């Protein structure tokens, strides 16, 4: 009833190819953006910023990077955390070597290092596919984390072996380090993530996106209709790793404040992969849905028992959390292998013709 597309006619291909050809979608997006940019920052507490808002955005960005590679270009990767690490360490080095550098510029530049390393580890994809490629990217995961630990230059030879985010000022406001307030950091993250999302949507619906999807769906046919597979796969690795690298830099500079090498271990890779799979491979919005679920669920599970007055120890909550998240992953994969995004798409399809399905 509220989601009816009848009467919305397109008179040009330009209108048909608009970002939101359905008016209701555009309205919904406006509402979401209004919440993200105005309502949440005004109402959120320190706790909400730190446990929900900022991590959801950062994880969604990381998953979006992975999704470009795995969901759109069909190249399975288990090295996401390592590439996030490259972004984070690159950003740290940039900021310590060039202290005058604008931190946002540094974050954006750090993705380039990650992209370079991503391409290097993506070269095996020209020869191997599927699970075998996943193993090759696993090598990246272990090698890079080892490198973060052993190469002392990366963390400026400090005794702890960890990187500590310094206080950085921009236009008179502390935007990273212990001095920075959550709301500033939230806005920085939100701005970066919003811009990256728009760019990603454009890339995936245009020529490059079709090249990637063709490579994913049937590589032999793709090559025979004129797609250079090497270029297609390596651009996917480059762009994916760039986004993942930026998310890694945000992860440390705008959220964690410090990082040890084992922060970027395979656990984090799997976490990002789960978000991408649960959200829906081959979608952009799915990454947000997945991130909300994976990041939000533990928080909700923590709050609900105490709010209801049920005495549960925090250790039990932790166990429950793991069990429920695990069960949900299986549940969603059975109910809808294409993820939350596909559920949303089905709902929209049904709503368009509701209440007269025939």
């Amino acid at each position, binding site marked *: 009833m509220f989601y009816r597309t009848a009467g919305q006619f397109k008179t040009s*291909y*330009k209108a048909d*190819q608009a970002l939101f050809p359905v008016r209701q979608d555009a309205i919904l997006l406006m509402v979401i953006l209004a919440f993200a940019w105005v309502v949440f920052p005004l109402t959120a507490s320190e706790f909400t910023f730190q446990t929900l808002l900022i991590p959801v955005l950062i994880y969604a960005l990381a998953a979006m990077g992975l999704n470009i590679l795995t969901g759109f270009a069909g190249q399975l990767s288990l090295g996401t955390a390592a590439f996030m690490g490259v972004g984070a360490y690159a950003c740290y080095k940039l900021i310590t070597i060039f202290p005058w550098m604008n931190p946002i510029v540094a974050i954006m530049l750090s993705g380039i290092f990650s992209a370079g390393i991503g391409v290097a580890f993506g070269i095996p994809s020209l020869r191997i596919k599927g699970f075998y490629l996943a193993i090759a990217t696993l090598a990246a995961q272990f090698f890079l984390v080892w490198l973060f630990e052993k190469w002392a230059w990366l963390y400026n030879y400090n005794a702890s072996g960890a990187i500590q985010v310094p206080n950085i000022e921009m236009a008179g406001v502390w935007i990273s380090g212990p001095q920075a307030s959550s709301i500033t950091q939230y806005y920085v993250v939100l701005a970066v993530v919003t811009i990256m999302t728009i*760019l990603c949507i*454009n*890339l995936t619906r*245009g*020529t*490059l996106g*079709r*090249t990637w*999807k*063709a490579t*994913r*769906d*049937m590589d*032999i*046919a*793709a*090559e*025979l*209709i*004129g*797609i*250079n*597979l090497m270029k297609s796969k390596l*651009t996917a690795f480059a*762009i994916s790793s760039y986004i993942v690298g930026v998310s890694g830099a945000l992860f440390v500079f705008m959220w964690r404040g410090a990082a040890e090498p084992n922060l970027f271990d395979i656990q984090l890779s799997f976490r990002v992969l789960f978000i991408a799979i649960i959200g829906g491979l*081959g979608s952009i919005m799915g990454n947000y849905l997945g991130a909300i679920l994976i990041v939000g669920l533990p928080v909700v599970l923590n709050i609900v028992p105490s709010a209801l007055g049920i005495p549960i120890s925090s250790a039990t909550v932790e166990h429950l959390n793991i069990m429920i998240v695990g069960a949900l992953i299986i549940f969603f994969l059975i109910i809808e292998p294409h993820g939350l995004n596909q559920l949303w798409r089905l709902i929209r399809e049904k709503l368009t013709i509701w209440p007269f399905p025939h």
Partner: protein
Amino acid sequence: MKDTEGYVTEDGRQIGGVLMEMQNITLRFGGVVAINDISFDIREGEIRAIIGPNGAGKSSMLNIISGFYTPSEGQLIYKGSPRPQMKPYEVARMGVARTFQNIALFEGMTVLDNVMTGRLTHMKSGILSQAVWWGKARDEELANREVVEKVIDFLEIQNIRKTPVGRLPYGLKKRVELARALAAEPSLLLLDEPMAGMNVEEKEDMSRFILDVNDEFGTTIALIEHDMGVVMDLSDRVVVMDYGKKIGDGTPDEVRNNQDVIDAYLGVAH
């Protein structure tokens, strides 16, 4: 060598000069000789069929033309000059498009996107321009969409434009595949068993489209097909292969009366 005279078909169409010429093509897989010293040509504007019993090497021949296999011996002359060894995507960029025996569409994409992939060889905007969806990338997208829509209209698949290909029935998938190949505006269109597995009605539709494509766009078509009725009706000239060798070449009537061809199809007492 160069022959630009052409000929006039029975129904009065003027066929042009040689578009592609196969010269003494041999293809070996290890010790197996899949194609043995075959030469023939494809002329501009004609419908050229390659027929033969199963395992005769027809599909291998098509794969050589589309660059998927490299011939062990012999060479291809394309548009007057020898074609060097190149990758399939480079061949596609030179104006050779094809469909596949087993449908090879991109299942996760809509019909429109699938057909749009056929235009990729014509799209040149950079990554940055695409990312901001402004300027060259957007203009290019719109211009190519127009071409694609013409093809979609032509093949009468407007109503399934936005349907994911995975949901379509077999006959329509074949048609979408043809649309994707046509969208590239090829100089040479290769069809690998365009009518395999279709019922009579679908075959009629497909035959009509093939003739229309040839008629309307003047596209040169080389096709492999098992349905003799279709082949004899559609094609201007036919190459017959058997066990990797060429045993006949000529108009459908000539081929039909060729003793070697009859032997190959009906079998012969040894």
